[in-house]
């Protein structure tokens, strides 16, 4: 019983208040703050199972409904033994983290409207650690989402090869981080929840369609080629597709037709560089977000 366990103070006597020393800010303290923000993100995700389920609906629709439906049309362009579903699987896998990552940043806008952000902003921690914690948290839950979709790889005839899975998870993590950083950067400027949702909704599908997730990046008209090269997701879908195809043994497979290298005016961008581009973009968008959060009104 609460009343019995209460100290004498509850009966009106004066007790010594417990002294608490708040330490000076340091690297250790900032690391702890990154952890707090990161953990909060995970707890929220765990309590919101509906979100986890609903964000799987779209990639499943793309893979099984669109993928199956278009198979007969696409068969002409596929070597025998390669299904269209297998072809689009890496791109749809990237899509499975797209929504979760960007919308995880929406909670910043939400928290701003509902006050919790202020509780964090008035704490003696660097703005940087708040943003980093947020980006890592969003990246973690989005990757988790991607891993669930990765479990469905067999339905798209993608083998469960440990090496392949490790590569794909790594690439998903990087993509999730960059997308969350993008969302956080926008959330730093956009103060209204509706506006943020509308803007991200508007951006998500173009990002997906221009990434070459559903078609190979060759023989495209110049305007479309240019747009695909601007889309950061292109630079991760390419390596992901390469990884999948490297673990398939398909006779008569012509890599340059179905999974051509990403080129800039004829120059093939090496894979390490494509991945590097995504990483650098993520880091710089996170940097912009930190600068934005450092500003006080």
């Amino acid at each position: 019983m609460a009343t019995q366990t209460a100290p004498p103070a509850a009966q009106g006597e004066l007790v010594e208040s417990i002294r608490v020393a708040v330490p000076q800010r340091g690297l250790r303290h900032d690391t702890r703050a990154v952890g707090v923000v990161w953990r909060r993100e995970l707890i929220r995700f765990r309590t919101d199972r509906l979100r986890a389920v609903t964000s799987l609906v779209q990639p499943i629709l793309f893979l099984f409904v669109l993928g199956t439906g278009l198979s007969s049309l696409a068969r002409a362009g596929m070597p025998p033994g390669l299904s269209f579903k297998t072809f689009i699987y890496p791109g749809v896998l990237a899509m499975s983290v797209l929504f979760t990552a960007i919308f995880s940043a929406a909670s910043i806008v939400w928290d701003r409207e509902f006050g919790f952000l202020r509780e964090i902003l008035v704490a003696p921690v660097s703005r940087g650690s708040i943003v980093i914690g947020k980006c890592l948290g969003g990246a973690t839950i989005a990757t988790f989402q991607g891993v669930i979709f990765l479990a469905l790889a067999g339905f798209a005839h993608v083998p469960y090869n440990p090496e392949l899975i490790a590569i794909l998870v790594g690439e998903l993590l990087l993509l999730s981080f960059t997308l969350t950083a993008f969302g956080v950067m926008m959330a730093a400027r956009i103060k209204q929840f509706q506006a943020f949702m509308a803007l991200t909704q508007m951006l998500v599908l173009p990002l997906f369609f221009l990434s070459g997730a559903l078609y190979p990046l060759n023989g495209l008209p110049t305007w479309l080629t240019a747009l695909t090269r601007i889309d950061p997701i292109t630079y991760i879908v390419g390596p992901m597709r390469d990884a999948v195809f490297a673990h398939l043994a398909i006779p008569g497979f012509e890599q340059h037709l179905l999974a051509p290298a990403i080129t800039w005016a004829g120059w093939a961008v090496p894979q390490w560089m494509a991945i590097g581009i995504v990483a650098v973009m993520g880091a710089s968008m996170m940097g912009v977000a930190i600068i934005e959060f450092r500003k006080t009104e």
Partner: protein
Amino acid sequence: MTLPASISDEIRLDGDRKPVIVVAGLTKRYGEIEAVRGIDFAVARGETFGFLGPNGAGKTTTIKILCTLANATSGSASVAGYDSATQRDSVRRNIGLVFQDPTLDTYLTASQNLRFHAELYGVPNAALGPRMRQVLEMVGLWDRKDDLVSTFSGGMQRRLEIARGLLHAPHVLFLDEPTVGLDPQTRSSIWSYINELKRREDVTIFLTTHYMDEAENCDRIAIIDNGKIVALDTPEALKASVGKDRVRIHTADDGAAIASLASKFGLTAGMSEGAVTFAVTAGEQFVPRLFAELGVPIRSVSVSRPSLDDVFMSYTGKTIRDAEASGSQAMRQMVRMRGRR
């Protein structure tokens, strides 16, 4: 070897009995709107200091500047010996803040909310358990610590926020409209918790309010209107400065009574809540004269000491409710302007 932060802060505050909060020439503009227009005040250690004024008077803006959430346009503010603009982290370590709007994470339990707060402030793990229990017992929520905050009533949430603001044992606790939106019973229970914590913790409290009765709990009050401090003193001194008692009478003919008060006594009376109301010095001695000389039958009479309402009225020429109404009009105008942009 430097001193641990809390000890050095102790010396800063103890060594020279400097005020805990010092504000000088503070102004804040938001574009066209001047929210704070040059205010000065100081708060002594252990004091409960209140900002009383209508919504939109500049109270929250002042708190935001003191708490490092906004930059002043000009002037300076220091809290616990640190400058609010240049030594933000040091200020943040030494203050606790309870915001006007709830800032709890309703997805989490009460103790999870406190735990997160403790980590953000780097409260040592060894101290956390006992301290958490102490603050939760202080606000009567210890037995609800494992419940989700979303199941808490408004009053419980506010109490939990006060507990959270105290968790890291700050030197200054800021309460921005601590009881706004709560029913009168809950408001008075929140105040008994605040008074209890003042007795127990060595803490200076800075609060804002637009409730007169709430301001009575303060050691000193600054009355703020239109971004300026118009009066600053203890509640008693402020009320004494008005000097006049408020007399309310019910009569057979109110119109005739008002006319007669003006012609026979030179008093300006008005109708307020269905009664003829006026202010007069030494109201009790005035009542016999009133009955003898008014010439209009009086059905009832009441005399009250000046309240903070009267103080606000005498310094600003309007009641706080009137000021509120015109303030929210200005706010609506501002929103419209923003919308157009």
